[in-house]
């Protein structure tokens, strides 16, 4: 059973990483194609340093992903707690409906309808330019929120409600009880929500496309290469980002595991 589960997990990871491997492979191509491999070279890695449009795009993507995921996590966790506390059925069904809508809409619909809204408001308050950093941030927070809420709610349902009351009985203020009891028990849900938001935000291009104006994110920059072709420098950039994250993660995980071991030893 143990070996079977290991093989299974390994197979899934293989499936997930097959295209990534192709990407890494072609980023070392000396030719200008992402389809035919000529010979091994680092040329495109040097090349990405020159490509201002792409680097700008990457910067925008990361900034938006961090900000929108953080905002959505805070707002969404609060919302999840609040929604479960709602007693009136009508409020509750309103809350769940508005949560479900962005997930049920095609991205393109969310994108275009938000664009219409922003442009409409922009005209109303007399802006000559209504699309940009703020609008793409708002759009990302909006589509991230349901994912946070939907990751937190099941966790809240699983937590023992008596714990919270016990904390209150033992003299905690409601706010203290919330941070000391509720948050720790839904931590994984919050974390999942954050990661999902961050991921969705990095990956999104449709909604960004319609709401970003001059503030183009990397997926938008890449998508706009439709008439011409994608060059290996895009692959090289993605590989670089991938390697940086991967190394940082492994470092982080070793540090974390060590400190956990130390804690167990001390205990």
């Amino acid at each position, binding site marked *: 059973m143990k070996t079977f*589960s290991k093989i299974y*997990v390994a197979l*899934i*990871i293989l499936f*997930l*990483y*097959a*295209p*990534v491997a*192709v*990407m890494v492979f072609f980023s070392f191509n000396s030719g200008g194609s*992402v389809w035919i491999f000529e010979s091994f070279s680092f040329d495109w890695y040097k090349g990405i340093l020159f490509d201002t449009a792409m680097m700008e795009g990457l910067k925008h993507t990361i900034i938006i992903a961090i900000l929108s995921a953080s905002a959505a996590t805070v*707002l969404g966790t*609060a*919302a999840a*707690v*609040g*929604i479960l*506390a*709602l*007693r009136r059925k009508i409020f509750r069904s309103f809350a769940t409906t*508005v*949560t*479900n*809508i962005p*997930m049920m*809409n*095609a*991205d*393109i*619909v969310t994108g*275009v*309808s*938000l664009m*219409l809204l922003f442009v409409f408001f922009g005209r109303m308050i007399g802006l000559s330019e209504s699309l940009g950093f703020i609008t793409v941030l708002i*759009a990302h*927070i909006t589509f991230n*929120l349901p994912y946070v809420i*939907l*990751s937190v*709610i*099941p966790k809240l349902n*699983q937590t023992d409600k008596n714990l919270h009351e016990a904390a209150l009985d033992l003299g905690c203020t*409601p706010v203290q009880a919330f941070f000391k009891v509720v948050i720790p028990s839904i931590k994984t849900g919050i974390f*999942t929500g954050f*990661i*999902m938001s961050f*991921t969705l935000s*990095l990956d999104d291009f449709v909604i960004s496309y319609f709401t970003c104006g001059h503030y183009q994110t*990397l*997926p938008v920059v*890449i*998508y706009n290469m439709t008439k011409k072709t*994608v060059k290996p420098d*895009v692959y090289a950039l*993605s590989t670089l*980002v*991938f390697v940086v994250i991967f190394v940082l*993660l492994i470092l982080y*995980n070793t540090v974390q595991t060590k400190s956990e071991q130390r804690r167990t030893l001390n205990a």
Partner: protein
Amino acid sequence: MNKKSFGSRLVAAPYLVWASIFVIVPLVMMAYFAFTDSSGVFTLSNITQIGKYKKAFLVSILYAVAATAITLLISYPMAYFMTKMKVSSQRMVMIIVMLPMWMNFLIRTYSWISILANTGIINTFLKSIGLKPLHLINTPGAVILGMVYDFIPYMILPIYSVMSKIDNSLLEAAADLGSNAFSRLRRVIIPLSMPGVISGITMVFVPSVSTFYISQKLGGNKNWLIGDAIEYLFGAGPEYYNVASAISLILMILILLCLAVMSRFSGDEEGGVIV
């Protein structure tokens, strides 16, 4: 007591205000577009035109159902095995599952073309060991594979998240009471992980049914899914926003219906998604 629950109700307020402005208002605008022509006069013609998209709707839903089912079948054991790992490995695997999604999805889809093509990696390999090449690209299977690939983390994570919370003592109790591994799975683990499953189904089904990029690149772009049609119309210029809005509206209603049916089958009202 009352004061406390009033306080916790209040924390939902910022979200509700936010959602009203950025979810409800745009939706109203979309509905307005669906029922007007390009000069803003009320009309039903956008809705009545939709008949010809019937097949595209149907095929999209079929593909999405298939993709969701396959994703669920693959993800459930994965999530289960993850909960059985060391805590530090669990964190690691969770990140590993999400990480490919941090690479641009366009590039990932492109890479799948390199893998599945007739001259691609799989077929080159098959030919080199003397087997007959398979026709993989430009088939419904390739499109469904693309969907499964792209959305699988959104199935694995919610299921894992809920499963990791299941109290081990419950399982031990069940074992003590004489239930075997299979009945523990059926009677304890599956029912308790249902909220995660429902969240996962929603998060995979919805983007699958409205996807457009995957179908164009992996499916040969000869026959559109409904997402392709919507994307095309919105891209064709402002004069097509009305028809595109009408199709989107219908798509949304269909998705709602599908999800309602699904949650009926699962019979769990307090699930992750409360339709």
